[in-house]
């Protein structure tokens, strides 16, 4: 009897193993072929001097040359600096969206209406958004400068066309496009805070501001952590918007790392060099995530 049960369990776990592999295989194979193997290949190619159009027999290994050259390449260093400047958007967006989310969640009617409004730029394609803002920011005939001139500013900035204003213009647009995502996640986080905590604070006679800093903010810390990581990773990946908006210009003022990567890979056909940029990017993102992962223990409450 017990032997029969054991046999059945063994048969069951054998059957389970097969089912498990079959259920997960399609996804695992796809990620293997299209992400895991490519990133390993990228790592190998980053040690070569190669033009991928020319075929495998022209490949030449150059050791760490590509990486060494990266740190002598002014364009790349400049694009990296721009990437770090873009990071400033992340906390600003999180701050504004938290304030908006807290106000709307606590004290407004038509919450879904506000969610849709603020989320709209996020669901719109970056191509459409970029084209739209190119017109809005048009130096001589755009509505933004039209407005600025009508209120008495005689020489409004040229925005995207002026190298000293172009990066800040891109940042304004990115902020506008990302705000809705942060806000919706914060709203979800706010709705998960149990009401009795606020009631307890009320009994203790806490003011609204006090409640915000002692109840809301600490309980939202996992959300804040999540948004910080996705925001930073996302800002390093931003490609579509900048590509259509400025193409990295004028005079390289809005150049970012992924744009350098694209230029080297598909325009200059320097596959090895482009792969080195890709691997650098991966390491920067991993490093930032790791630092935050370690740091979160200090300020994230679960």
């Amino acid at each position, binding site marked *: 009897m017990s032997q029969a049960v054991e046999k059945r369990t063994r048969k069951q776990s054998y059957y389970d193993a097969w089912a498990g592999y079959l259920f997960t295989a399609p996804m695992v194979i796809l990620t293997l072929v299209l992400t895991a193997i490519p990133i390993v290949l990228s790592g190998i190619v980053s040690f070569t001097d190669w033009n991928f159009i020319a075929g495998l027999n022209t490949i030449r290994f150059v050791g760490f040359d590509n990486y060494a050259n990266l740190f002598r390449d002014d364009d790349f260093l400049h694009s990296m600096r721009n990437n770090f400047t873009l990071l400033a958007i992340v906390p600003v967006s999180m701050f504004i969206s938290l304030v908006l989310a807290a*106000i709307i969640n606590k004290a407004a009617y038509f919450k879904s209406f506000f969610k849709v409004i603020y989320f709209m730029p996020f669901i719109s394609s970056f191509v459409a958004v970029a084209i739209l803002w190119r017109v809005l920011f048009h130096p001589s005939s755009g509505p933004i400068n039209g407005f600025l001139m009508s209120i008495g500013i005689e020489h409004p900035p040229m925005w995207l066309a002026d190298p000293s204003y172009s990066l800040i213009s891109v940042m304004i647009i990115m902020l506008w496009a990302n705000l809705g995502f942060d806000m919706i996640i914060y709203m979800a986080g706010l709705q998960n805070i149990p009401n009795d905590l606020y009631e307890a604070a009320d009994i203790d006679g806490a003011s609204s501001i006090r409640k915000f800093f002692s109840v809301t903010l600490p309980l939202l810390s996992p959300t804040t952590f999540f948004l910080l990581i996705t925001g930073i990773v996302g800002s390093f990946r931003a490609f579509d918007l900048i590509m259509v908006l400025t193409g990295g210009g004028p005079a390289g003022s809005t150049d970012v790392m992924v744009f350098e990567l694209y230029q080297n890979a598909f325009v200059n056909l320097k596959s090895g060099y482009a792969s080195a940029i890709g691997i650098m990017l991966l390491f920067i993102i991993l490093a930032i995530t790791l630092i935050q992962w370690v740091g979160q223990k200090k300020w994230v409450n679960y």
Partner: protein
Amino acid sequence: MKTIRLDRVLITIVMGAVGILFVMPFLWMISASLKPELDVLAYPIQWIPKTWHAVENYKEVWAGEVTFSLYYWNTIVVTVLTTALSLLLSCMAAYGFAKVKFKGREVLFLLVLTTFMIPTQATLVPQFIIMRWMQLFDTHLSLILLGSSGVIGTFLLRQFFMGINNEVLESARIDGANHWTTFSRIATPLVAPGLATAMILRFVFTWNDYQNPLIFLRSDRLFTLQLGMKKFADFNGEFYSLIMAASVSAILPLLIIFIFGQKYVIEGVASGSVKG
């Protein structure tokens, strides 16, 4: 019955004003798409067109020289197929990772999890080579496979499957249902909100993708909407009314989907990420 409170009404009005300021660029876009070119950049802005030119503008976009309707159709094909394939694969994988016990499960899941950290641009060159090698370069299938290899859906749905009580599934198994029946008849219907979220996210991401079509497509007849929009904008240079009509056409389907699905998106994002 809730009573209407004055302070809430006031805050709603103030926030409404902020919100309108926020969507002003979109209002400008819609308004520009409805009027003749000469009025588009007129200042002060004519929010409601003095002369209507909507029919002509949209006709020029949809039936003009740039084959916008073809690009639109291509995008619908790619987006629908990507979304369907991605949902099927991630739903199956999520069920496997959450509800089937097998050797190596944790390792495989970790592999899938780590690919999430890799910036898509870092893999472009090898992906390009692999696609050419598989003879898939310059096909819609390349975009569909790349889109389906995204792992967000797998995480999200795994979270949802983990929430299902094991007893529900085990009682089905005792009744003689195999894994496939349990998965398709019992488990999947229980994660419908998660499916809706994964579907909407994948749909929006694919519809708006510019980078992959830019790299993996060459033939004009295969172009998707986002490439077409860029081409349309370059082709029509200063004809902002037409460009805005094209932009409105590109955004509209997503807006409609989001308005109907926003409840699920928020629910899904909240349970998938915030609770951790």
